[in-house]
């Protein structure tokens, strides 16, 4: 409604009618989508992320260089060198190529653990919240143990004992994110477990697991989704940290965190190329964090 127009009785009624007109009220998810679509920051972050994903998926189409093999004569070229837009690394490999391919590993290493931890954490948390009693005591007190560690350190310790590699890195990161997600799921489940529709479902004699799957999960989805999406940005950085320490993918496979470490020795000769992989970690992480903030606002979840 245009505010400049003088408010006549007629336009007031029209405005009132326009607000209340839809015969079927907007559903929760429709409202969430409308709120998200009106968030410029969220849409921009989503666009950046889709662009990064597209770049890393289409890497072989965008560059003809081999990410693992370089030309020793072309070592340490600066940004903007013809033929090497983003320069070359200490082994003469094209940086643009390695950034594009490296994005695959960095994205997988950040997203996969959050997904795995969300599935396991939700199962553990909703079970504890729903059954309560000793089941909750055993599960949640075990989860508490994980809060006694600085998370990154625990991930490093687990990763170190499993040995380097993408798969082991994903396991290590999944373990550290299960506990916080289980807590969120448990709290959300306990809030709704007293609701009448749960009581009704119990009275039908349905088994516990079916009630959890059909009734509980739909109702605790929002807070868990919001929390998990907030973890992705952190997980991207933590995964890169592990790779930086040599606990991620094995060379010569490119990965942003590891690239940042192996270029550390070149900061005196080719400084800005050495800083490039970190820039991409940062852009990915901040985009996920901004996207998560918009999703939280859109789903209207209070932390």
């Amino acid at each position: 409604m245009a505010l400049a127009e003088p408010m006549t009785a007629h336009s007031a009624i029209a405005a009132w009618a326009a607000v209340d007109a839809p015969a079927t009220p907007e559903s929760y998810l429709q409202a969430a989508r409308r709120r998200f679509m009106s968030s410029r920051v969220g849409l921009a972050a989503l666009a950046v992320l889709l662009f990064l994903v597209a770049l890393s998926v289409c890497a072989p189409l965008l560059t003809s260089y081999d990410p693992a093999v370089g030309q020793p004569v072309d070592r340490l070229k600066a940004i903007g060198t013809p033929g090497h837009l983003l320069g070359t690394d200490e082994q003469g490999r094209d940086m643009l190529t390695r950034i594009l391919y490296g994005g695959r590993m960095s994205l997988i290493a950040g997203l996969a653990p959050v997904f795995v931890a969300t599935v396991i954490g939700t199962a553990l948390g909703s079970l504890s919240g729903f059954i309560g009693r000793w089941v909750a005591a055993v599960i949640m007190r075990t989860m508490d143990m994980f809060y006694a560690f600085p998370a990154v350190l625990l991930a490093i310790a687990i990763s170190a004992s499993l040995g380097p590699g993408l798969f082991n890195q994903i396991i290590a990161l999944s373990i550290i994110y299960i506990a916080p997600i289980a807590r969120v799921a448990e709290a959300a489940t306990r809030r709704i477990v007293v609701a009448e529709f749960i009581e009704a479902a119990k009275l039908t004699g349905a088994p516990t697991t079916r009630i959890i799957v059909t009734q509980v999960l739909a109702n605790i989805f929002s807070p868990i989704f919001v929390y998990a999406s907030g973890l992705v940005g952190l997980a991207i950085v933590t995964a890169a940290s592990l790779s930086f320490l040599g606990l991620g993918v094995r060379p010569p496979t490119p990965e942003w965190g590891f690239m940042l470490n192996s270029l550390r020795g070149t900061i005196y000769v080719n400084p800005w190329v050495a800083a490039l992989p970190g820039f991409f970690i940062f852009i990915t992480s901040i985009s996920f964090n901004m996207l998560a903030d918009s999703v939280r606002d859109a789903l209207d979840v209070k932390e």
Partner: protein
Amino acid sequence: MVTLILRRIAMAVPTLLGVTVVIWLLLSILPGDPLAFLLPQDASPADRARLATELGLDQPLPIRYVDWLFDMMRGDFGYSPFRRREVADLIAAAWKNTALLAGFSAAFGLTIGISLGTLAGVYRGSAIDRFVTGLAIVGLSVPSFWVAILLLIVFSAQFKVLPAGGMATLDGGLSSFLGHLVMPVISGSMVSIAITARVTRASIVETFKAEFVDTLRAKGLRERQVLLHVAKNAISPVLTTTGLQVGFLLGGSVLIETIFSWPGLGQLVFNAIAARDLRIVQATTVVIAATFVILNLLVDLLQMTFDPRQKRAA
């Protein structure tokens, strides 16, 4: 009050035990032959069996755990064949250096974070508020090791004003001591600044909504005096996060200390990982986790004295 404090202290004991169980299980159950590093390739099965008996590896798991725990409580963390030193000695030397770095980082992070958060909370909706909120998102997203490398590029490689790594003692003069601290502290405390600023801002904004603020204003207090009361009431949630932040600092120390060659626990862990000396990784993780649990305990106790409401909650 005394009973409450004692009860809170007693609650930390099972947590500490849990920490040791988790670490011990992780490193005992996971694949890897602990004897492979200690014996030559062509060792006979009889030699293997004798060493296994000597190290207690033929005992059932629970007994090995209890042995390990009691050894550790006596300060015996085992011997590192790679460093040719007692692990306990290595850890004791490194612990002080990490405590120094973490202490400076925590102090820096809290000071900057609380100042920024208070500014944003008092002038909410203003340009300062938007700046601080944006800065907090950046601080939470930026990899500390990238900040470290950017600082190195600018201050060590380009302008050559700060040392690229290492630690200096106070004997070498104050400026050298602080010069070695600047970059590790700044890069290590980014997350800390971001979290503190966020929590402080939220807490200040929330406290300003309380009824007592209207009462103070109605009484005729000047805005600056009102702010003092608000700040006093808003500090509790900020304190709660300090324990968490020390966790970030200790975990991040592995990266920061590696980059700046800071001779602390983090570097010890990194070098041990590279040498696959899991005994050091295990012991250091337990020591850092124990430090973390005890610090959180201290923060809780501090809060109980600051905020009388916490006493009832405990």
